[in-house]
């Protein structure tokens, strides 16, 4: 089974002489794996996720995702890479308030040039699967937190990405909604989807992840597979 993610001594430092936000970190993630990245605030979890998604560039080392050197891509190529290979679920959903639920889900497909009808069908299919199809014509502001996160997951999956990234997907949800989203992501993973999620929610990590990486001060402090420590 090949690696979807390969980080080789990847590091990220922001301006100033302080310690780097991340790394250097070396990490491989296999296809079909569900990796949970945990750690205290400021440990570099979101930075790691941003590097993998190509939202940020490493200051050292390399980042390869689905066989492509993300750190070498230009902005336009990165955009193409994200819409074709990556699905992103954010803590605060980041749905566009002015678009309906269906339009939000269709948007990445439309940006990727998918024909209008095909994008609409795919969005409807996902909304059905994720149980929010009745809200297709509503605006995100009218939905509960759990429902919004379901819509966000549908949007992340619309282009059938090789990799689903989730940044604190239950962080802004109440307990019941958090549980719903946990179940949802587990179901997606069971369908063969590779997932990397950053979370403080140890219950989520335990229930979903096949592997858990603990970051402390930007470096990997522990890397455990479900049921066994490495």
């Amino acid at each position, binding site marked *: 089974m090949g690696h979807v993610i390969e980080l080789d001594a990847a590091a990220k430092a922001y301006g100033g002489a302080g310690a780097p936000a991340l790394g250097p970190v070396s990490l491989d993630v296999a296809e079909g794996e569900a990796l949970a990245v945990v750690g205290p605030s400021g440990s570099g979890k979101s930075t790691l996720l941003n590097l993998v998604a190509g939202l940020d560039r490493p200051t050292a080392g390399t980042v390869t995702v689905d066989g492509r050197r993300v750190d070498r891509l230009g902005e336009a190529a990165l955009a193409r890479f994200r819409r*074709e290979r990556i699905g992103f679920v*954010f803590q605060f959903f980041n749905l566009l308030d002015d678009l*309906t639920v269906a339009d939000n889900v269709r948007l990445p497909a439309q940006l990727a040039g998918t024909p209008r009808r095909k994008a609409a069908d795919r969005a409807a299919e996902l909304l059905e699967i994720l149980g929010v199809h009745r809200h297709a014509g509503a605006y995100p502001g009218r939905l509960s937190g759990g429902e919004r996160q379901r819509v966000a997951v549908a949007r992340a999956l619309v282009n059938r990405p090789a990799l689903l990234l989730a940044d604190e997907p239950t962080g802004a949800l109440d307990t019941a909604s958090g549980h719903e989203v946990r179940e949802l992501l587990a179901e997606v993973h069971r369908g063969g989807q590779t997932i990397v999620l950053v979370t403080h929610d140890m219950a989520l990590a335990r229930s979903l992840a096949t592997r858990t990486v603990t970051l402390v001060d930007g470096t990997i402090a522990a890397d455990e597979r479900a049921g066994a420590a490495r």
Partner: protein
Amino acid sequence: MSARFAGSVLGRVVRSGVGRRRVQTLVVALATLMAVASAVVAGSLVVASSAPFDHAFARAHGAHLTAQIDAGKATAAQAAATAHLPGVAASAGPFPVTVLSPTAQRGGPLPELTVAGRSSPGGPVDRLEVTAGRWPSAGNEIMLPADLPPDVAETGSALTLPGGGTLTVVGRARSVTGSADAWMTPAGVAALRSAKAPGTDQMLYRFSGSPTKSRLAADRAKVAAALPKGALAGTRSYLDAKYVADREAATFVPFLMAFGALGLGMSVIVVAGVVGGMVGANLRRIGILKAIGCTPAEVVRAYVAQALVPAAAGTALGVVLGNLIAYPLLGDVQQVYGTTGLSVAWWVDAAVAAGALLVVAVAALVPALRAGRLRTVEAIAVGRAPGTGRGRWAQRFAGRLPLPRAVTLGLATPFARPVRSASMLAAVLFGTAAATFAIGLAASLNTIGAARDPAANAAVSVMGGGPAPQGQEQAPPQGQGPAQGQGPAQGPGQAPAQGPGQGPGPSPVDGAKVEAAIAAQPGTASYYGVRRARVTVTGVVGGVDLQLYQHDLRAGAYEIIAGHWITGPGQAVVPTHFLDATGHRIGDTITVQDQGAAVRLRIVGEAFDLENDGMHVHAAATSFAGIEKRGAADEYLVRLKPGVSTASYLSGLNSALKPLGAQATAAADDVSSTIVVLDSLAGLLTLMLVTVAGLGVLNAVVLDTRERVHDLGVCKAIGMSPRQTVAMVLASVAGLGAAGGLAGLPAGVALHHLVLPLMGDAAGTRLTAHMVGVYRVPLVVPLALGGIVIAVLGALLPAGWAAKARTATALRTE
């Protein structure tokens, strides 16, 4: 919060607000700068166009009456004694006067110059404006007219006199009433005229108050009576110069008022939009300030001050820039008006600056008051989540359009911020209207320029040897009106009648042979002959300029407003002013007195002809029996076949003409200085207004981009490419640009159709449909797209910023 603490906190808030939002601060400063500069330029030109002659005349202590006294009939002492006549408030002179026709080393023969001998440019009456160089100090030095082209007879160059001798050019000067064209020392003039006695002396008078025409006539009679009989050779009233100057000014006023109104209106809209948007975009910060204890009044003060800091800097720089731009323009206007000393009035600067700051303060006050009244939680919430649900219908609709999604996302954006979008729309509308108006005006002026004088279409002029054409030997001193009295027996507007082609006697040149030479010359496309004369027309007070055409009548045709051009004998074409002044209409018959014989001509057309105040009669030479016996025409104007070199044509034709006593020269390219000035004014003012409009758009898009930076981050995170981001931002203004362009285009056309006829009225003519109807498809299409261009140019910079914004940073933005 103690007053001291609050004061220091507010100071910091203002300073940090100005420093932190650098782009926005810069845009506010730039928009204010351009708006203030436009307003200063427009305001100065409007003020300069308000009675420019009266102001310049008062400044220069201009002469109400300029008298030419025959030095052979009255002594200098007798001339000087007229200064003590009752009613004379001040006088200058007598100054010796002579007429010269010098040739410049560079520039060839100069127009005939009336030269006065004065020891200095100042004095109690007619203070001259020295525009270049210094006053003559030696007898062989001369001061030339200020309005001669700068590359002709430069300062330091020599002039050759027809009878031998040279003069050194030491500078340029101008008299507000055109008392003379050029000046030398009294001794210098006396030396020149001693050989051609009797010369004339010049006396300049100012009378108490502002004399009317009838009072001046009475004063003139007193001067004539105080001198020996026949000594008063001619007089010139300041009313003639005033008439010409006011007429030129009147031509400018509608144009400048239109631009002034556009400039001021747009300045107010853009500055108000920019400042209001800036305060409105800071609601969250306002909420935080309130949360830490600032009172609503302190918040309002802080934000009004925050807007006033960059606006004050922009205003100060705008006043400076406006003055820098206005100064050379006023120089041009001064030349057109024939006046002196036009400058930006101090109160225009003060009023524009005060008005701009007032607009800024009010524009900041309204949203600041609203923000000050908001509850703290609301202010923070509004700042964090600006989405109000407005414009969702537009997103739904746009989403169905068969366009790329990035474009449809952008197209719906303006509906989420209707007030800001309306301000942007107004800026684009004003900018497009200004550009449409200016380009249409330039097109009309160019059409008018081409139609003004058909002789300008000729490449070659052949002087037939008869009386010289007007504008040369008969040219009045600069600034003099078209209807001036020169002789003691003539009042203003009167001139001696002189038959066509008569002049100093029949031309010695054989016209038939000249015409044959022109016709035989290879390269001749067409030609016509012109005879000019001052005649009287029965029932018309004063003299009328008669212009007779021979050979190819059509080649000399003026632009026709109504009726048709002359096609044969017995017909006349006259300008609008002739019809207005005489009460005649097309179809009427007029009687021209020619050498004692009355020639009846039927008016068949109304021509666009501004020469000589529009008191012209055009007719076929064959209307006058036996005209061919009077020798060659005064001038033949020749059009060349395409591709024929003027120089080689002239060389060949002159070889044929030399034995006949005639000479061919390249026809002068006589471009109206009024048209040149109006063209440059229109170009500059349009550029300024379009820039202000672009800044308005830039500001709106900067605000929008800042507010939507998080959404942009989301879009980029889910795969929006930089190109799609640029497309989305540009599409967000393109719709407004298109709407503004489509609304601004008819507004500009309407303004053009309103202003141009007013300018024509001021110039004493109607305009042809051809001159007004300049908006044809090749012009309208780019103008209609102009709104999109303004909007896209204004949005390009923030679109680039949006495309380059780091996705991770944008996502972290609240």
